[in-house]
């Protein structure tokens, strides 16, 4: 190594803690206690000053329209199911949690619809690939529901009717245009 070549673009980070006052620790302890005690006293005097949500009673209000919540199956203008059981979502699903059994549609609106459309939310990774894959805008994740509860494993397998009953939580331009007369 040649000593005369100085490495460039190396900055020296100032190091703290070598001064006698730092080694004594006590000034730093005093400064720290001032901060923590300040927070403690403020919150003791007014418990509602904290930003923390009292969760089950207080629900979050800052969920954006881009949040991927629980799925829903959308409706057509006449209120019937939009899904045509093309299996695009089930194919795209990396977790393979969508189970579709198709049946013939006899009401003349379309040719095919799902008889069973079940999403196993215990398997689902909420990646949104099904929404991307859907050619009919039949499945969406804009419900804003972030909590799924149940007592058995079967409770977490969302069936077609439950998915149809979910409504979109966010007013988007698309929603306004397409579903204004129905939802």
């Amino acid at each position, binding site marked *: 190594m040649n000593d005369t070549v100085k490495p460039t673009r190396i900055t020296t980070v100032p190091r703290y803690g070598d001064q006698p006052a730092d080694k004594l620790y*006590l000034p730093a*302890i005093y400064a*720290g*206690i001032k*901060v*923590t*005690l300040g*927070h*403690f006293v403020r*919150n*003791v*005097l*007014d*418990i*509602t000053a*904290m*930003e*923390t949500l*009292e969760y089950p*009673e*207080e629900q979050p209000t800052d969920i954006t329209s881009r949040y991927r919540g629980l799925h829903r199956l959308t409706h057509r203008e006449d209120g019937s199911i939009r899904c045509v059981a093309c299996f695009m979502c089930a194919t795209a699903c990396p977790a393979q949690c969508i189970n579709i059994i198709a049946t013939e549609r006899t009401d003349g609106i379309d040719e095919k619809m799902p008889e069973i459309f079940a999403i196993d939310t215990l398997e689902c990774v909420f990646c949104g690939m099904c929404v991307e894959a859907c050619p009919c805008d039949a499945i969406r994740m804009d419900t804003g529901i972030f909590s799924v509860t149940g007592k058995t494993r079967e409770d977490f397998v969302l069936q077609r009717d439950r998915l149809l009953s979910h409504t979109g939580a966010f007013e988007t331009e698309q929603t306004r245009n397409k579903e204004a007369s129905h939802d």
Partner: protein
Amino acid sequence: MTTAQILVTLGSIVLAALLALLMIPVLVWLERRVCGLIQDRPGPNRTNVFGFRLGGVVQSFADVVKLVTKEEYIPDHIRYGRWIFLLAPMITFASALLAFMVIPFADTVQVDGAALRIQGLPVSYGILWYLAIGSVGILGMVFGGWLSHNKYSLLGALRAAAQMISYELALGLGIISMILTYDTIDFNAMVQWQSGTFWGFIPAWGLFIQPFAAVIIIIALFVETNRAPFSVAEGESEIVAGFFTEYTAMKFAMYFMGEYVAMNTASAVIVTMFLGGYQLPWFSTAALLEHFRTVAGVLLLLVPVVMTLFILWMRRNNRVRLTLSTDGGRGRETRILTGVLIGTTLLIEAILLWLLLEPAGSIGASVAVPLLQIVIFVVKLMLVNLFIILIRWTLPRFRYDQVQVLGWRYLLPAALANLFVTSIIVAGVGS
């Protein structure tokens, strides 16, 4: 012994046991709530019995119930010394509890011609007892860690033992300098020594007489009780839970509670040695007894004010945000507690009024003054406990080698120097 003497003795034993044991759930609750409030979150505040949350203190009792009913699991690989493995947490817990027993909660009372100490254990060599019994706790940790047959447990026990040894020296030397200052090994005599003032207005508390020794001893007590920032005996990121990694259910709880009893004991020692113990500043016991009517009169005015402030604080804070439709029964609890508090205030007022108007020379003052001193002691104890908890949530932990460096290179020489200077001053004043 007369009946009164037996009653007073039993009373002080019960009081000592209650102050040590009942403090555990309160301290666990305090730790979690203070931690939460410092970090701008509420902490445990939902557990309730019939809608009574009491600020969340019920959570501690729920935790105890949970730990008692948990499965006791002893790993199969623990083959040797299983009975010591089971005994170890009890050693730690019992030593912390017994060390608390020599703390005086009030001045000696004269009952039927005999001077009775208001201590759990009425001995006059309190400091020696504390040092001897308090240090036994480490044996429980070492046994537990060693017999767990687990690397992490062994390392944790090793750390606990090593830091205990290195700080016991500084603690002992610091305490010797305090013994020289007070010229006694009796906790009660120490408290009486601190009842005076110096320079006319500063209370002669150990903290003001020996601030240097106070800092050394308080730091050493932090280490002794395994409290942050010296909690290297356990560390989730390094050695799992340290020496109690293999312990479950109530055995674990024994270590856990022993830690809090030890912390409480350390606070009591700090209060007794440095903060004037049960003494009201500027009022010795004799002065309290002499001017008892004045004190009762002041209390008569002070108690309602304090209670009113407390009730107002409770009404303001035992609630949820106004935007919520339900308050989870907090309103009902607040109303009932307000009633209870007002009733208590009226009772205290009535007793104080009776003390104020009673004929001179009756038994009232000699009962009320110890009670007042007990209350003062508990208030000081809680404040020091709060301080210790505050330190834990303020400072980051020391690394293990930093702990050793601080103990051997800084604290030990400082304690020696302090002892040297103290000895010279004491000898100079004495001669």
